[in-house]
């Protein structure tokens, strides 16, 4: 735990759970036992929804797997409860893994509906299998006893549960604040950008899903011992809805919300079961669902952040206010410039391919959309330590080329070789793993993070603390410090130091663009793809960026640039490729491109409503570029 609020929370919870039972009647302690057990399951579900952006509508299935496994191991095989619990949680996670492997590749609603189906399946299997006790289930599960105590009263059982939930909370909080939590938060803001920074979305989501199944399984274990009976109802839909309501009411992704939600929903449940039959005479069965459904709907419409959002609003931690203050301070002090003005090489790296050796090799790259050919049979190579510009009129296929090279879209045909390995059709995180990354023409800012938070995601591949070590907090702190300091270094290179702690969404357009470049550089790439990096920048910022790119080139980095600002491109690039209507019509040094008849024709042929192209034609024809890039190096 890093935050003081977590420490306060843990102390409060310990006080309530340890001292509470002495002060309240047994019936309240009894309800509190269920509240804590359900909260454990809901913590996992909250992580799944908040971090992975996915929802399970059948989380009771994992709960039931844990409960049944524990019941069978303890009653039939007389296995020690602790060992049985490890097996039970492991089995719940295994089921989660098997369901998650095919489904987490797809959009969110498939996992939701499939888990809903899983709940039904588990119920069917439980009812149909004599070994599982069919409809009557398994009974006679003993209350746990160890350390000379039998945990058989609500008060005793709450004390047994206390260390479990506290540990569950600490592990989950550590995860949310870790490198993994940061990466998943980025995925929720922009999956494609997180992927191009090396975040393997699918694997991380799968891990969180399996973890959430584990939390549900653990809750099932304690449920089995407390109720002494496990039957097919423990997988039923009403219970899954209850878990979901706890997580949603508390606030998605907030661990503490799930704990508060657990108590709120349990007491609501008890209350509704008593009150509804009074209002509707003769009502029986799952009458509490009326309240669950209505509250779930109301929360989603009026309070999507749940009780957590309401609490923050009350104590004035509202995000908007903070960002407004941030804006005020920076309007006074902004307009930073790169901290150092020297022209030496930057971000050189041991083991980088030698300048002049081929880094990227594109062959026959083609993309068809229906009958339209957006990119047609494009070939080019890029060497380490050179800047290649990709220019052409609007709709020429430049961004589509970038998308195919970086794995955002798969080519219809052709190949992309990066450092000698074929990567076309692979996901963007594979591109990033080969030390290559990109920025986006349509900005892909991680809007829920600060500038520093954005750039730290870029360090994802240059740090290694995984899910388990994140949760345990092992070595994570030192690494977090290293990630933050190297990220601040890169932020300084782009002249964004003043803005480092501002919410990224508050930055003006041009500075968001520079932040994307910083984020990309944080991955320490050998190959950098920049999609219109100059758009929205001031004249001074453009010059600074050009200087930076030259210094990166001097350090041995290869850069491909899509840019509308032809003047800047001809000044900067070693070689220029010209696309027109998906076809590469020229590839050569800037002075060759300047006089290439096909290029002139292409630019002259464009319609007048593209002022940048018209300006470019003018520049090309008159040769008014400020300096000749050929003589630069």
């Amino acid at each position, binding site marked *: 735990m890093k935050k003081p609020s977590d420490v306060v929370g843990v102390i409060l919870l310990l006080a309530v759970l340890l001292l509470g039972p002495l002060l309240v009647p047994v019936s309240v302690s009894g309800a509190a036992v269920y509240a804590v057990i359900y909260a454990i399951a809901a913590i996992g579900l909250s992580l799944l*929804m908040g971090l992975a*952006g*996915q*929802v399970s*509508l059948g989380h009771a299935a994992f709960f039931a797997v844990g409960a049944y496994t524990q019941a069978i191991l303890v009653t039939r095989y007389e296995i020690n409860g602790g060992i049985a619990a490890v097996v039970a949680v492991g089995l719940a996670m295994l089921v989660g893994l098997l*369901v998650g492997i*095919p*489904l987490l*590749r*797809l*959009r*969110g*609603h*498939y996992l*939701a*509906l*499939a888990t*809903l*189906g*899983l709940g*039904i*399946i588990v119920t*069917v*299997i439980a*009812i*149909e299998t004599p070994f599982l006790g069919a409809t009557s289930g398994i009974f006679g599960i003993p209350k746990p006893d160890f350390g000379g105590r039998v945990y058989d009263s609500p008060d005793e059982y709450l004390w047994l549960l206390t260390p479990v939930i506290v540990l569950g909370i600490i592990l989950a909080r550590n995860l949310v604040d870790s490198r993994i939590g940061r990466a998943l938060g980025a995925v929720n803001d922009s999956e494609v950008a997180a992927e191009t920074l090396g975040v393997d979305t699918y694997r991380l989501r799968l891990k969180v899903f399996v973890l959430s199944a584990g939390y549900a399984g653990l809750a099932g274990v304690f449920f089995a011992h407390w109720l002494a009976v496990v039957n097919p109802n423990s997988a039923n*839909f009403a219970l899954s*809805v209850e878990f*979901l309501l706890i997580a*949603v009411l508390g606030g*998605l992704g907030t661990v503490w919300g799930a704990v508060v939600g657990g108590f709120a929903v349990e007491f609501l449940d008890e209350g509704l079961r008593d009150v*509804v039959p009074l209002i*509707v005479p*003769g*009502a*029986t*069965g*799952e*009458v*509490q*669902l*009326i*309240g*669950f*459904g*209505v*509250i*779930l*709907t*109301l*929360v*989603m*419409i009026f309070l*999507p952040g749940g009780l957590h959002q309401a609490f923050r609003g009350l104590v004035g931690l509202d995000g908007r206010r903070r960002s407004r203050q941030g804006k005020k301070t920076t309007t006074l002090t902004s307009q930073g410039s790169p901290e150092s003005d020297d022209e030496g090489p930057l971000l050189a790296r041991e083991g980088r391919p030698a300048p002049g050796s081929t880094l990227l090799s594109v062959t026959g790259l083609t993309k068809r959309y229906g009958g339209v050919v957006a990119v047609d049979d494009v070939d080019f190579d890029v060497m380490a330590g050179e800047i290649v510009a990709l220019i052409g009129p609007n709709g020429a296929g430049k961004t589509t080329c970038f998308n195919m090279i970086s794995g955002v879209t798969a080519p219809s045909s052709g190949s992309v070789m990066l450092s000698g390995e074929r990567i076309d059709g692979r996901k963007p995180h594979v591109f990033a793993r080969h030390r290559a990354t990109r920025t986006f023409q349509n900005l892909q800012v991680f809007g829920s993070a600060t500038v520093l938070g954005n750039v730290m995601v870029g360090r994802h591949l240059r740090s290694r603390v995984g899910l388990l070590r994140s949760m345990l907090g092992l070595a994570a702190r030192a690494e977090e410090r290293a990630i933050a300091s190297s990220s601040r270094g890169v932020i300084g290179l782009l002249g964004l130091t003043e803005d480092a702690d501002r919410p990224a969404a508050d930055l003006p357009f041009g500075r968001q663009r520079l932040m994307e470049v910083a984020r990309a550089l944080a991955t320490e790439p050998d190959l950098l793809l920049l999609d219109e990096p100059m758009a929205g920048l001031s004249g001074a910022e453009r010059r600074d960026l050009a200087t930076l790119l030259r210094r990166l080139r001097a350090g041995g980095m290869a850069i491909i640039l899509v840019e509308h600002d032809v003047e800047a491109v001809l000044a900067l690039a070693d070689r220029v490729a010209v696309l027109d209507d998906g076809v590469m019509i020229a590839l050569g040094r800037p002075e060759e491109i300047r006089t290439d008849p096909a290029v002139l024709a292409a630019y002259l042929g464009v319609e007048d409503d593209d002022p940048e192209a018209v300006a470019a034609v003018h520049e090309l024809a008159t040769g008014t570029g400020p300096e000749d890039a050929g003589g630069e190096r």
Partner: protein
Amino acid sequence: MSDFFQLVVAGLSQGAIYALIAMGFAAIFSVSEIINLAQGEFAAMAGLIALSATGAGLPLPVAMLIALLSVGLVAVVMQRVTIAPVKRMTTLTSIILTLGVSTALKALMLLIYGPDARGLPALPGSNFVVAGVSIRAQDLWILGITLVVAGAVIFFYDRTVLGKALRACAEQPVAARLVGISPRRATTIAFLIAGLLGAIGGLLASPISLTQWDSGLTLGLKGFVAATLGGLVSIRAAVLGGLVLGVLEALVAGYIDSGYRDAVAFVVLIVVLVARPGGVFSRQAQARV
């Protein structure tokens, strides 16, 4: 062999119900990218409303009409009150929101109609036997009405201005607005269509499989699986998906164990999603990610 055909007939009849629910999923998803988890509740609700109307002495056709119109109204009100006010509708939001509505509707039915399962009287006609296969009149009604309704829905989307505009809404919201239909109004109409389709399914199914407050859960899930076979957007594929799922279920129930009937849909869902996430019967081969 007559066993086999007997199972297929029963499966087709059950599958037609799934097809009607599946068309409802596709109608809403293709316009607004929302998965409406209350789709099954529309069916259960229609059955229960018609049951209480016949219980009050009304003739069956009148009771059915009342049920149809009431459910259509509920669907429109649901969209207006719960879907329309949400500004940022993500997949996650839409799932939790419609789950909330579906849960509330379920509980409301439990409170109003109680927990018992009941069935509407079957539509008129006598059962008969062809080549050793006995066919219930209700089976023919179900298949006939489903095919007519499916034809009408396909005609609506392919041939009428309003139907084409609805489809356009999903792909080109701006263009759709230009021809005078706002995405919000399109979503309302889609919910109305989905409500009516679900209600027809619920009314037809009730004499055979009975209706109770939570019938909508499995009906909804199976309708979704059927719609998934068509990639969630194609009406034709949704109908085909429903029929195939119904037959598969009947065969599993007949030859393996009737207890596993409800497991079929889930297995089919996983297999389809692994093999062809864009749908088995649709030409669009890749899921839009």
